[in-house]
């Protein structure tokens, strides 16, 4: 098993508030890793450090052996990290297909000169991009909606589109921020299948943040639990279920496993 990503002693301090306190973790190959924890545990902050939205106050982040701590989000995308958002951030005035197209590295890096000159070669290159994106749409199950505006899709479909968009960047690792939020149980079932497909058939790694315990337990190979910015547990789903600290963290805060 090789190491994909690791965080070493990462902390994030906003003003006087320590949102993430000295967390270290490693993500191994061939595992679906999940990050859970009660509200305000620092999950999203940690997530944002992995994607580059925040620069950690202390600590380093390594991706396939390369130090990416100082890299900006778009630079991390080039390294192969892509993400979805907790509050959906689609390009709402664009169509479903366009949301994917624009995420495709060959599309958004088109050379201006070539664009202005036009020509057959460009046409052919574009055809390939469109085909690749349509393939991804097929995978996330939105092929029949490809010409709809993103804003007209149902909530659950918008979440799927975000995953599709993340996949279109041709990533090695996909970070999913609460992908199941707002979905009904049937949609969640489909989501699980999709995530497994992504890891097994497309050979992408997945790290996800989730609230829904049942969903997380069902899909994860390993689970990390954050509380008050600290890592309180790390292990297989069964182990986490038994972990006293985790139960306290959740029940003590009056949280149930359903949002």
């Amino acid at each position, binding site marked *: 098993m090789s190491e994909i990503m690791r965080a070493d002693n990462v902390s994030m301090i906003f003003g006087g508030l320590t949102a993430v306190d000295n967390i270290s973790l490693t993500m191994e190959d061939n595992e679906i890793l999940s990050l859970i924890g009660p509200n305000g545990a620092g999950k*999203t902050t940690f997530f*944002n450090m992995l994607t580059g*939205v925040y620069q950690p106050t202390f600590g380093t982040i390594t991706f396939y052996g390369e130090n990416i701590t100082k890299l900006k989000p778009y630079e991390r995308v080039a390294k192969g990290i892509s993400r979805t*958002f*907790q509050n959906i951030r689609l390009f709402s005035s664009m169509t479903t297909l366009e949301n994917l197209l624009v995420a495709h590295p060959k599309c958004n890096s088109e050379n201006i000169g070539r664009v202005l000159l036009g020509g057959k070669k460009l046409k052919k290159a574009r055809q390939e991009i469109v085909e690749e994106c349509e393939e991804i749409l097929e995978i996330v199950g939105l092929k029949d909606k490809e010409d709809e505006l993103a804003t007209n899709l149902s909530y659950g479909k918008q979440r799927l589109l975000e995953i599709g968009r993340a996949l279109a960047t041709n990533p090695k690792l996909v970070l999913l921020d609460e992908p199941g939020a707002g979905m009904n149980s049937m949609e969640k079932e489909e989501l699980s299948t999709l995530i497994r497909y992504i890891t097994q058939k497309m050979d992408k790694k997945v790290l996800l943040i989730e609230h829904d315990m049942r969903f997380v337990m069902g899909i994860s190979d390993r689970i990390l639990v954050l509380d008050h910015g600290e890592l309180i547990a790390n292990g297989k789903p069964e182990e986490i279920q038994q972990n006293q600290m985790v139960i306290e963290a959740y029940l003590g805060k009056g949280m149930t496993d359903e949002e």
Partner: protein
Amino acid sequence: MFVQQLINGITVGGIYALIALGYTMVYGILKIVNFAHGDVFMIGGFMGLILAQTTNLPIWIAYPLAMLITALIGVLIERICYRPIRLHGADALAILISALGVSIFLENFAQLVWGTETHAYVQKIQRTAYNIAGITLSNIQIGVIVLCIILMIVLYLVVNKTKMGMAMRATSQSITSAQLMGINTEKVIALTFGVGSALACVAGILVGTYYDAVYPLIGYSYGLKAFAAAILGGIGSVPGAMLGGFLLGIVETLGAGYISTGYRDAFAFGILILVLLFRPSGLLGKKHVDKV
């Protein structure tokens, strides 16, 4: 000469600050730039002139009346020209264009009604100049500075110490949350426009009294400078508008005084750009962090 120029700068700056308050309050609450505010200032100046001149009312009745009318005009502008667009949920640019439309409308309306000429102001206060150690200062100049400072302190207290002020601050944080808390946000917005416009009217009357002139296009340059002052101080911040106004007045006066009068306005905008580059949220503005 330095002290004299400094005093000149403070006087002009006080007026910029009064107008800037209107920009900053509206921006604080609605996050829109009310480009018509400079013209509301002009209308205020004319209202003061007309009421004092034609009705023979004493100025302590005429001027507050003018403020009231100008405040109403401000509220009407919001009601008719901004609210429908706001409630549509349209782009902020749409409101900006509407504001530009209001500005064009008011300027040309004023030209049609009052003509294009410069009007001499009513002088109900005898002007006397004092000469202290080579520095000349007139009673009106002192009055302008003192009044500006008093009004700004009053506004600061209203915003920070009263219930209405609290409602205003809550609305500026988030309109939806404020509504959930039972605040009548539309009333708060109307009040903001009213207060801002009334202050602009005071500024108009002060300019009229101090410089003894008012004309339909006067709002353009004052409006622009006051807007710059609001941004300089940190738009959305009441003390920021005061600081920005005074600073802008002093910088442009000293720049014009010691370097070149031709580039007078360039100093004002130059410092503005510099400040924004190093402190993008203005001198006293809150740093904006994007939530993800």
